[in-house]
């Protein structure tokens, strides 16, 4: 039964649509307490003393823990070596929102009142907010234990940039700035914890990687990993924001302290001010291009604002520094990257992992070069595009690449040639008003433009983590013939459970309704690093495929013995095993037979997928084939710019994605739509309003995420390059689908009105000012 390539709706969709799906905040345990966090009101301050005596007098308070009455080990996220975090601030607070104390009480109101009664005496210290200033000598240190405010720096070269620039016809140079972006998942961070008599904690968490959570929280709490069990709850949106989070470990701490179950849920304002938003970057880029359009040399310097802690920002900086170099056949490169501490909200993972930031720079500067050369930007990209079979400048083995197809199909799909204007019409309002008629006025006021941008990503990459980073799966077939899939990768709402069920059903010959996919439980599920880096379908999907094939072999062996046939002559289709001479058995019958044949044992298929020929990058040179597959994207944005106000409206996005092979078009297109929406928000709308270390926009009315009225038409084109490593040829999609949107829109704005905006978000004000500067109008 061929289920690959079919539109299969979410297997847990009805549970969600009826409100029956239980999320973490919906859990109630007997005797459950409510925990809350006291957060720092200052960006940088010494904690002189904490007086919790009045808070303890509040009836219903069960625990108050501070960094002054407890020792906490230094830790960071799994595998990151600069240990700069503690569960609660001990001597200093490092940002507005830093965790100072936690309280557990019988209900939320009591906990909130107790927080109010804790008196903390602070001595304010000079803060650093600007990463460029924070890099200088003699500035205040965010972390006293560090020698500087630069926990990570990197530098690498390929080829010879001097020679490359010397042979260039045009050299373009620009500085780009991209700010914080909040993940904006609808479910705020939440945790429920319970501790048993032996001191072992169970945590119910909406978490992308329970495996990494267990490693990190054991370190944070100073207890062995086997004292933590993480049960994954449904994730109400993740987008990278639901990896390790301090609230989880604080909830465990309170459960251990009180011996009672504890629930903690961020308010939305807490989630804004102490979440882990996208890493802001300043990107200086210089690009040399030969007269024939060949990319000749590139020099970059990236300064990434980590905020108060490193978290995953070192990996995000590395990704920003080197992944985009593999998009085109560019041989001469020199790159420097710096990760810088500031007294601001710590930053972290968000869909794209550094790639949206750097592709905004790269894909903008490519258009600037094309403009100087008088070349069509699509043509420039096609001339340099990486191709199937290439080994890139950083040693990436590109086994499948649909980049050129994506460029051709997205531009053709958008009517690129016809729509691309070649002249800028800088009419002022006065000039326009002199022309007769309202129509002419409107025509000159609203300018249409079209822009293209490309990107790539990894899918199933070798991380910096020392752990096994393939994927494993176990499939048991129960006595009723139902297959139950256990895998280490999580469903964030993107539909991983459905995809895994689809793959298992396809391999086993079962109707998809006879397949269940469990949520991850670290006591039960096989090892997996979880869902990030576009790894779930590529790695997890391969593990499910292998486990299902193993289970199938076991089923057919039992059937062959029962029927006197041989396994090779039997087929399973729609849950029925058939063979020659009228053999016909249901899978449920075989499952029953298995009980006796296997002496009570279950049919249990195992699958382990190890991505082939993949290595971590070299620590110094950053060389190495880091992923088993690489997805490619081209997006075309069509915009309308109001010359008089600077307002930009996106009319349409045509998005072509090389996904290797489409396993489920319904879900794949859903990823494109959602990612493009986030990309439009990133480009035009979303601003956390961080000034002097303070997040000003911490409600959904102030932080402007796209609503239904903000969405243009999205035309999705899925390109199949059939990757040899992907399951059925498939590779990742969700992250690169956001990456090129910002540059595509910025390039379209340039095409429409002739101004180049180099800072995100592209607000109406910025466009207006740029128009005024360039044309002296309106």
């Amino acid at each position, binding site marked *: 039964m061929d289920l690959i390539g079919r539109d299969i709706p979410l297997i847990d969709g*009805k549970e969600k649509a009826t409100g029956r799906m239980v999320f973490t905040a919906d859990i109630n345990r007997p005797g459950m307490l409510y925990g809350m966090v006291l957060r720092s009101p200052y960006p940088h301050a010494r904690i002189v003393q904490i007086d919790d005596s009045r808070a303890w007098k509040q009836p219903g308070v069960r625990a108050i823990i501070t960094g002054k009455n407890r020792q906490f080990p230094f830790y960071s996220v799994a595998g990151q070596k600069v240990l700069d975090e503690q569960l609660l601030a001990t001597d200093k607070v490092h940002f507005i929102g830093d965790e100072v104390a936690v309280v557990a009480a019988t209900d939320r109101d009591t906990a909130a009142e107790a927080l109010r009664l804790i008196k903390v005496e602070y001595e304010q210290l000079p803060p650093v907010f600007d990463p460029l200033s924070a890099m200088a000598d003699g500035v205040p240190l965010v972390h006293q234990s560090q020698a500087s405010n630069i926990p990570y720096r990197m530098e690498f070269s390929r080829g010879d940039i001097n020679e490359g620039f010397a042979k260039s016809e045009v050299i373009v140079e620009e500085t780009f700035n991209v700010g914080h972006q909040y993940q904006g998942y609808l479910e705020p961070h939440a945790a429920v914890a319970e501790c048993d008599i032996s001191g072992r904690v169970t945590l119910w968490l909406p978490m992308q990687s329970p495996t990494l959570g267990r490693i990190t929280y054991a370190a944070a709490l100073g207890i062995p990993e086997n004292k933590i069990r993480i049960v994954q709850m449904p994730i109400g949106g993740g987008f990278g924001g639901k990896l390790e989070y301090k609230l989880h470990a604080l909830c465990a701490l309170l459960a251990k302290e009180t011996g009672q179950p504890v629930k903690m849920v961020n308010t939305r304002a807490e989630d804004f001010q102490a979440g882990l938003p996208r890493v802001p970057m300043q990107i200086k880029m210089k690009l040399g291009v030969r007269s024939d359009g060949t990319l000749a040399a590139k020099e970059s310097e990236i300064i990434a604002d980590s905020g108060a802690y490193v978290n995953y920002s070192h990996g995000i900086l590395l990704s920003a520094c080197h992944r985009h170099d593999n998009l085109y056949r560019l041989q001469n490169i020199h790159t420097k990257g710096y990760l810088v501490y500031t007294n601001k909200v710590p930053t972290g993972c968000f869909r794209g992992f550094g790639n949206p930031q750097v592709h905004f720079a790269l894909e903008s500067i490519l258009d600037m070069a094309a403009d100087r050369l008088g070349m069509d930007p699509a043509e420039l990209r096609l001339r340099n595009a990486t191709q199937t079979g290439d080994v890139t400048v950083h040693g990436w083995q590109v086994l499948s690449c649909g980049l050129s197809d994506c460029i051709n199909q997205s531009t053709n799909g958008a009517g690129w040639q016809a729509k691309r204007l070649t002249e800028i019409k800088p009419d002022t309002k006065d000039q326009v008003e002199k022309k007769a008629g309202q129509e002419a006025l409107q025509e000159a006021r609203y300018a249409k433009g079209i822009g293209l941008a490309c990107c790539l990503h990894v899918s199933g990459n070798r991380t910096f983590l020392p752990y096994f980073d393939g994927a494993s799966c176990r499939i048991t077939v129960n006595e009723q013939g139902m297959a139950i899939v256990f895998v280490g990768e999580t469903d964030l709402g993107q539909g991983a459970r459905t995809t895994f069920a689809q793959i298992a059903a396809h391999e086993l010959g079962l109707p998809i309704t006879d397949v269940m996919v469990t949520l991850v439980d670290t006591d039960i599920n096989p090892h997996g690093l979880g869902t990030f880096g576009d790894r779930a379908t590529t790695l997890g999907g391969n593990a499910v495929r292998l486990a299902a094939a193993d289970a199938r072999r076991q089923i057919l062996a039992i059937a062959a013995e029962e029927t006197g046939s041989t396994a090779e002559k039997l087929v399973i289709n729609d849950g029925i095993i058939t063979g020659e001479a009228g053999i016909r058995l249901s899978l449920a019958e075989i499952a029953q037979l298995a009980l006796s044949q296997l002496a009570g044992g279950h049919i249990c298929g195992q699958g382990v997928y190890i991505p082939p020929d993949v290595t971590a990058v070299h620590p110094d040179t950053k060389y190495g084939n880091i992923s088993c597959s690489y997805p490619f994207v081209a997006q075309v944005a069509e915009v309308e710019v109001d010359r008089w106000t600077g307002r930009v409206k996106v009319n349409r996005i045509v998005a072509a994605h090389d996904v290797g092979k489409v396993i489920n078009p*319904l879900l794949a297109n859903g990823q494109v739509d959602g990612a493009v929406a986030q990309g439009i928000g990133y480009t035009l709308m979303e601003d956390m309003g961080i000034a002097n270390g303070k997040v000003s926009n911490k409600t959904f009315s102030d932080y402007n*995420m796209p609503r239904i009225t903000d969405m243009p038409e999205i035309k999705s084109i899925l390109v199949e390059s059939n990757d040899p490593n992907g399951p059925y040829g498939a590779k990742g999609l969700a992250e690169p689908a956001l990456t090129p949107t910002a540059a595509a829109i910025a390039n379209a704005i340039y095409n429409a009105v002739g101004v180049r905006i180099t800072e995100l978000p592209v607000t109406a004000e910025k466009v207006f000012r740029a128009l005024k500067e360039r044309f002296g109008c309106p």
Partner: protein
Amino acid sequence: MRQMLKVTVNGYPWEGLVKSDQSLLDFLRDELGLTGAKKGCDGGECGACVVLLDGRAVNSCLIPVLDVNNCEVRTIEGLQDEQTNQLQDAFVSVGAVQCGFCTPGMIVAARALLAEVHNPGEEEIREAMVGHLCRCTGYTRIAAAIKLAASRINPETAGPER
């Protein structure tokens, strides 16, 4: 402070003392265990907590619980009629559900819309759903789902393109 409240929730009468400063959302979730309405922002900005109050779609986080005295409240759990089922099926089948956190509020709001307009057009849907945030789907399928459900419920008035 606690005060008496008399309310009908999902067809069942309820009477008792409630915290006077509590929101309808907290009352439904914490006192009645009706967790289908979600707390996404607690400020009336995301729509995840929408319930029907005397048939109108409201953000339950903004309603003081004492304001619903003698009213009828219907949550996603209490909506099991044909129209709601059609909406739920359509949301799932066209891919308007991803993580599902915003979905119950969307279904309730869409149910209220269809009670007023048999076959809403794009603009009517956008207007009705503008208060609902979804970070997963990009919204395009949400409008499609509502149109599909409407056309199945009211095929006689559905436009040809639906």
